[in-house]
């Protein structure tokens, strides 16, 4: 599903040149649950952004679902994202002006799904995430855990092949964090590929593989035995 070869990302400002990723290569197959770990500034989020087609690498190639996208324009990347990738962020990134229902519905609107189909699909996901009773609430009326459930619901609503989660439990207490990780795990079990950036060893335990980054390079890749 994902093949990265010598992915490099260099950020340049007027005086400083920072290499965030330095010739990173790996492959992720469909259905995998991969955790990316490493200290702050090691390039985790940069890698996630490139994998999520939010950014292009400075060098190297990135093949996503058989498309070489390292030099794709924003329009092409947006099209691929829209149909194939769901995102979960540490700070939820829910739109305050929209209700829970509307937040979850958002990706389907831009996929031009018919209104009735959208309603059915959102209700289905609301049930699945056990937040149906909160459908008409606004994000600020929810607890952190509930907000992240809504964010996960939004990420899965379009049935993406890949979910990218950036510190999904970072803003949650342990109980709510565990709930969210279980949700991701459940999604992985039914076949969704998940790539998760995390600082938490506990969260990483849910994954089948851990990629460790340091100074923009992969220093370690651990496959769990039961997965291999």
């Amino acid at each position: 599903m994902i093949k990265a070869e010598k992915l490099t990302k260099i950020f340049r400002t007027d005086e400083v040149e920072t290499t965030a990723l330095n010739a990173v290569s790996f492959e992720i197959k469909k259905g995998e649950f991969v955790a990316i770990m490493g200290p702050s500034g090691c390039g985790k989020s940069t890698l996630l952004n490139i994998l999520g087609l939010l950014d292009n690498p400075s060098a190297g190639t990135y093949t996503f679902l058989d498309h070489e996208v390292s030099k794709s324009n924003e329009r092409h990347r947006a099209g691929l994202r829209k149909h194939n990738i769901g995102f979960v962020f540490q700070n939820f990134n829910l739109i305050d002006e929209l209700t829970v229902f509307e937040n979850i519905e958002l990706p389907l609107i831009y996929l031009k799904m018919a209104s009735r189909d959208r309603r059915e699909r959102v209700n289905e996901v609301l049930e699945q995430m056990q937040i149906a009773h909160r459908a008409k609430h606004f994000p600020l009326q929810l607890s952190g855990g509930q907000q992240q459930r809504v964010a996960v619901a939004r990420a899965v609503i379009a049935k993406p092949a890949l979910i990218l989660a950036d510190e999904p439990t970072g803003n949650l207490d342990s109980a709510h964090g565990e709930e969210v990780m279980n949700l991701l795990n459940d999604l992985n079990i039914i076949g969704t590929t998940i790539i998760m950036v995390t600082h938490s060893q506990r969260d990483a335990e849910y994954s089948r593989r851990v990629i460790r980054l340091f100074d923009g390079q992969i220093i370690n890749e651990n496959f769990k035995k039961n997965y291999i």
Partner: protein
Amino acid sequence: MYLYQLKIAFRNIFKHKISSTINVFGLAIGLASFILILLYVVDELSYDRYHKNADSIYRLVSISDFEGVGEESASAPFPVAPTLMNEFPGMIEKVIRIFNFQAPRSLIKVGDKAYNERNLFFADSNFFQVFDYNFIYGDPQSALNESFAVVITKQTAEKYFGQENPMGKTIRYQDRIDLMVTGVVDQIPSTSHFTWDFMASMSSAKTFFRGSLPKTWVWNPCWTYIQLKSGINQSQLESKLPEFVKKYYYDATKESIRLYLQALTDIHLHSHIDYEIEPNGNISYVYILSAIACFLLIIAIINFMNLSTATSSSRTIEIGMKKVIGVEKWQLVFQFVGEALIISFLALIFSLIIVEISLPYFNVLANKQLSLSMFLEPFWAGVLFLIGFLTGLLSGLYPAFYLSSFQPLNVLKGHFDGGPRTIVARKVLVVIQFTISIGLIISTLTAFDQLHFLRTAKLGFNKDAIVYIQVTGNPIVTKYESFKNELLANPDIQAVTCVDDIFGVAHNTHEFRPEGVPEDKWQFYPALVVDEDFVKTFDIQIVAGRDYNRNNKTDAANGMLINEAMVKYLGWGANENALGKKFKSLSGDERVIGVFKDFNATSLHTTLSPFVLNIKENENEKYFFLKFIAVRINGEKNANTLSFIESKFNQYAPGRPFECSFLTDELNKQYIEETRLSRFSLGLTILIIVVAGLGLFGLVSYMIAQRNREICIRLTIGAGMKEMFLLFSKEYLWLILLSNLIAWPVSWLLLHRWLESFAYHINLDIIYFIVAAISSIMLTLAIILWRTISAIRSNPLKALRWE
């Protein structure tokens, strides 16, 4: 998707109450002003276009230039029209004259009703074949075919005949002839360069000229309109006119006269020549008002742009998430422009309400009958929609591209920074707003100063406490001496005289031949026909020689007063040298008996020129020329004296309506366009300051909100109100100073040009520039102080905890 976008748009509008209110309110004010001025401008531009053949109708204008002195006349001699028709039948479809005896008023009587009517004309029989009016009764083809026929307006018919059908009924004109009503037309559209209530057949006027119309090519009292044949253009006929002048005008004048055509539809806004039927508008003022209205709308649009980008930090998650889930940039642009359009159309609805409420007041100010009904026509409805659409588009495009260009990665991580470019852009927009506002403050103050100058300038005569009594064709003229003596018996009446025009407003030109000018070279000089005591009544200074003296029997027949400019013009050297010089007029050989100090015989738009005060001896001439009695009274608008004058008038002219006015009012009417412009620009400038101030208020509010954490930290470490105020003030103060720096020279240049259009004007006063600078700085500081106090009054610890 659209419903969703509409939903989010409205939720955003309600969420950001301050900016939404400023945006909607600002745009509504901008649009309302724009719509009002649009109504005004459309009305001004539509003058005379309602005539079916408007595009092929021209007015004949003659320029008489006698070595720098003369006139540019909107009217022509009687024989010109028929001669033109005979001379150029292949080019002219029709030609018509209208004529009013150059009388400001005409006495009309029907039964016991008698009024002095100002809008009575005599016209050639084909008048209604050239100009189109809606006939209620009568036939436009034949209504003026017969002598003593008159067509009247519906309002006039109601005034004299009530609900009766006036057709066939007679009205008495000047107590001399009866005119029979042969047609009634609907109200004359207000968009006419002249309005009329009575249009009598030209042949009826023959009675006053011993049976035939004047044949002279000198006296030019007929406004002459030419309808060109299809396919003939203005320049084709104009190229023939020099030959025409040579062939028909008198030898004494033909070298000095040039004829040209003036498009009917250009008259109202472009013609400011001698003997206009009514004062016209001014295209420059149409441009100025349009520009100010556009500025106001632009300032409101800038508010929208600034507040949209300033408050965009609250929408970063929405934008970022949409980008993340694959929404493309154009879709976001579309969304934000859509939101701007919603605001714009919301503002448009409010603006129409504002316009509807303010139209009655605006109409009084503009002296028009404008209404929103214009927008019921499909074209104008489309224009209105387009105004709303373009306003929304202009307001929304920049914020839309700005917001949609956010990098999702950055904004979702909370690394939102408007970036230096945006901050610079916002500041540039603030500078534009304040440059316009400051420029308009300076301009409005200057315009008012100029208007005050026009109204109060020393004209070379005393204009105060002069009562003008209209006596055109009034038998009182024949008993004038006796009437005058009775008036002078009242101690509150200082002086009485007679004159043929409103002094300081209008005058005619008359033919003269001063000493030294060849026999065949008659000159046309500006002149007033006056009577004894004119100099005394108007307090004119004699600088050489003497005034007319009734005891000197030859004065009326042979005496002539000229001004200093005339002495210079004729190259006679010292004023005293002019005394006794021959000055032939149509009345015979005359001599200069006195030289008076120059005065402004017309408005201050024009420079003073050589001038003659001529006295008539012949009773018939007096009857024809003397149209006003001017009375100097003690104290302006003394009611007792006025009623005394009226009682004497009624005694001497029983059955004649008494009509008087004050000279100061008549003089001020000359500056009606300037008065209107000043008032409009004052109103619009106040609105501009309000809208720009609101925009600044919004920006400062959001700047302070964004820097809440900084404020709190500064406050907790001991900063006080003064420090905070200075901190925020310097952000904006230098922008206002920069705006002043730009506005000052631009205003100076434009105002200098405007003032140059007046022959007499004030000098640009630095004080107005300083006032504009101080008021803009004070406004800015007041807004910042207000918002700073509000911020400081909030609990700093709360904000820190929140952060």
